């Protein structure tokens, strides 16, 4: 085990997968110069150099700024023998390639009756909350969750990032990985060497009995902080990180709500039709009888993202927002506790 950053873990997963299988290639804008930080050398093995030095320019290549063709080419290459990793840098650029994601990546295998295999991973980073303005702050994963045929991962810790990334590379299906940049620096103990974490299995980050707190991607640390705070106020939160959004581990979520009877969902995407809506809808169907309070969502407002630091903070979920939602659904609980205490 070593202590590793989230972004370091992504680099390590890529490096190991490329070393293990010559069919894995990595393409994207400015990947040769490691501009986005996941194709550099590792400190431990400095003599190996960066990815270009390790794997050569045939397998690591800078693309033109042509997202649609990049994504399409990766799909075509996957259909004909390669296992591409595509670094799309900012998640805000995925829209350029939407047709290729939806009409080719998601549909080909099905439409062609199973003739194609599409082992391709599309990575992109959600740079929100960093005062980059509306064009560089998107968290568009819900759009892709609604496209059957795609798999979607959204790891929230270094170990999860490494294990899920590798599982995604090893998958024969197209996977999109959404990485919250606010998490890049977070550290966790991670196994040395190769390992995978299966897609579709949620991680319970904290056990609890009063309320289930499902948190997605960058909202996980906020949820953990809120849970900690509420613990001090006598509310026991169970925090679940789904880690993969498609397939979604609804069983784990429903099981938890059956126990706690309450649900709050936090995520950095816009509220309308987000992952939180999906999770709320699943629970409102499958665990309705156990629910003792309204389901609360703590999401980005249905607003575009303003640039000014004086404004941007208004848009995204905060620890305070999550705490307020927990308070709202545990109002009776808090009352009782207060009475008991008083």
């Amino acid at each position, binding site marked *: 085990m070593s202590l590793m950053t989230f972004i370091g873990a992504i680099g390590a997963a890529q490096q190991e997968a490329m070393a293990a299988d010559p*069919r894995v*290639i990595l393409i994207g804008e400015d990947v040769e110069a490691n501009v986005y930080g996941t194709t550099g050398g590792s400190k431990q093995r400095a003599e190996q150099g960066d990815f270009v030095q390790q794997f050569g320019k*045939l*397998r690591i*290549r800078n*693309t*033109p700024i*042509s997202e*649609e*063709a*990049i*994504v*399409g*080419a*990766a*799909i*075509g*290459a*996957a*259909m*004909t*023998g*390669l296992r591409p990793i595509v670094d799309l840098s900012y998640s805000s650029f995925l829209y350029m390639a939407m*047709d*290729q994601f939806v*009409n*080719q990546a998601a549909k*080909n*295998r*099905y*439409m*062609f*009756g*199973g*003739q*194609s*295999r*599409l082992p391709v991973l599309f990575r992109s980073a959600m740079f929100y909350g960093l005062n980059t303005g509306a064009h560089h702050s998107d968290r568009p994963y819900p759009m892709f969750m609604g496209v*059957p*045929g795609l*798999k979607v991962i959204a790891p929230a810790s270094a170990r999860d990032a490494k294990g899920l990334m590798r599982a995604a590379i090893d*998958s*024969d*299906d197209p996977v999109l990985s959404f990485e919250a940049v606010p998490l890049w620096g977070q550290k966790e103990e991670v196994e040395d060497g190769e390992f995978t974490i299966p897609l*579709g299995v949620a991680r319970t980050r904290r056990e609890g009995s009063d309320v289930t707190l499902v948190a997605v991607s960058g909202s996980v640390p906020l949820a953990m902080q809120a849970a900690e705070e509420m613990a001090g106020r006598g509310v026991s939160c169970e925090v679940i990180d789904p880690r993969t959004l498609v*397939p*979604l581990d*609804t069983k784990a979520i429903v099981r938890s709500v059956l126990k706690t009877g309450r649900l709050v969902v936090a995520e950095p995407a816009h509220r309308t039709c987000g992952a939180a809506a999906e999770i709320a809808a699943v629970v409102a169907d499958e665990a309705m009888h156990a629910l003792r309070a309204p389901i609360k969502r703590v999401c980005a407002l249905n607003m575009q993202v303003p640039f000014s630091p004086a404004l941007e903070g208004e848009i995204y979920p905060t620890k305070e927002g999550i705490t307020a939602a927990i308070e709202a659904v545990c109002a009776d609980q808090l009352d009782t506790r207060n009475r008991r205490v008083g």
Partner: protein
Amino acid sequence: MEHGMSLPGDTLLEMQRRMLRIRHFDERASKMVKRGYIPGTVHTSIGQEAQVVGACMALRQGDHMTGNHRSHGHPIGMRSPLGPLMAELAGKATGVCKGKGGSLHLADYKVGSLGESGITGSSIPIALGAGLSAQVLGETRVALTFFGDGAANQGVLYESMNMASAWKLPVIFLCENNHYALSTPAHTVTGGRICDRGAGFGMPGTRVEDGQDVLAVHEVVAEAVARARAGEGPSLVEVMTYRFREHSEGLRINVDYRDADERSFWTSRDPILLFRKALIEAGKATAEQMDMIEAEILQEVEECVTFAMESPVPAREVAFADLYSDPYELEDVL
């Protein structure tokens, strides 16, 4: 047509066979749509057979091809067996895509057909990717993508041409310029000439003025293929041709967007009749031999129709297969 006549006699006759297969397959498909045996609609390649076959015959086993909504000719040109193609059009279990693709989405990986596309332009970068894998894996195969004059206005074509050129990928971009995109005359929506767009992206751009001449098409495409296979990079080929039918079978357009003179000029240049005549004149075959070939093809098409008609429809479960490669729990997707 003198030029290409130096090709082996077998090759020449195979060209005619493939053109006839496309023609008669599409004639039958058209009838089957009218009678309700084929659901939805189909886009025939009738009139454009030379352009399709001239290009496909320049490829060899192991090469890849992607196509568009005018979708039957391309896999037939690659020598995909007719039965599963027709069964696919009819939505049958024996279809080449198990009945899940339909006319717009034929694919037969065994012959290198990676998929037709209902979305214009969308399958172009798929061929680019096939070129990329060939280069990375060190294989000498090439990839050819068919698209129309209409699709030539999709930006992804130029992204793909540029990337193929910058990376010297073995890709042939083949524009089937049949002068119209649905009801829209190409000249009203196209700035400049499509073939001239190659140069700006660092690749040869060649126009085959007589796209009804299968040998003329073949010659130009074969050259592009040779170039690609030799590692010299991509080419753009624009073939001038004409569709003899309406955009899609059954579609009625009230405005008379193609005038009668133009139509009769082109129908007088039926690629199959032209090549038949040329073959006979060049002494490559007698009229009787040509008739026999046509009879064989008609028989083959008849059999594919019978195969399609007699095949069962897919079982209900087929609707829930093939979304992902790993077995997934049905409840997750239902």
